[in-house]
């Protein structure tokens, strides 16, 4: 079956611009997660959606980061006024019960 997909695969932007990253989870998975992978910080949890519950935003590094999940499926991670330290690979994962399944990631480069 289809796995988690993310778009774009690569994004280059200029400092100060806003970016949107998209995640399509595995069909039927109720939970969706965003993580960030960077050289200095490793893999960090950002935000988690579970069904219709309020999202767990405890990992978002600043108020420039936000995410939404529409219709319990597709999710968009938005970074406003990007900074160079936002450069990283942003990974999305989904799960139903046992284990999280990751997408290929979006590599964000902020110039």
């Amino acid at each position: 079956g289809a796995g988690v997909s993310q778009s774009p695969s690569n994004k280059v932007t200029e400092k100060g611009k806003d970016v949107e990253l998209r995640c399509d989870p595995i069909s039927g998975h109720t939970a969706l997660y965003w993580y960030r992978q960077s050289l200095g910080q490793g893999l960090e949890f950002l935000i988690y959606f579970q069904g219709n519950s309020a999202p767990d935003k405890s990992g978002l590094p600043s108020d420039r980061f936000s995410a939404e999940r529409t219709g319990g499926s597709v999710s968009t991670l938005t970074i406003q006024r990007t900074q160079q330290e936002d450069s990283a690979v942003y990974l999305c994962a989904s799960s139903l019960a046992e284990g999280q399944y990751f997408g290929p990631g979006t590599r964000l480069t902020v110039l």
Partner: protein
Amino acid sequence: AQSVTQPDIHITVSEGASLELRCNYSYGATPYLFWYVQSPGQGLQLLLKYFSGDTLVQGIKGFEAEFKRSQSSFNLRKPSVHWSDAAEYFCAVGPPRAAGNKLTFGGGTRVLVKP
């Protein structure tokens, strides 16, 4: 707070040799435990997981891991490494619930395979 330690940043192993990757965790209770593999330019692939029961867990690609409560460890092993196993391996822990497992990852171990 929970934490995961992978003591080895890099490991080089000859093709056909055995491989063991170490993982130690700190958690208030027995967490859910996972190993993921990341090939260059790829996302994370789930190798295996431990929730409860038999402490020796079999995964994909010939990998296995053993949970040792007394040592707070969940080491990954493979008896005979193939060149395609060259990748980065991440150990992760999550709270002991079925879903909603916000994962905490170790720093990763990069495995190089010599011909």
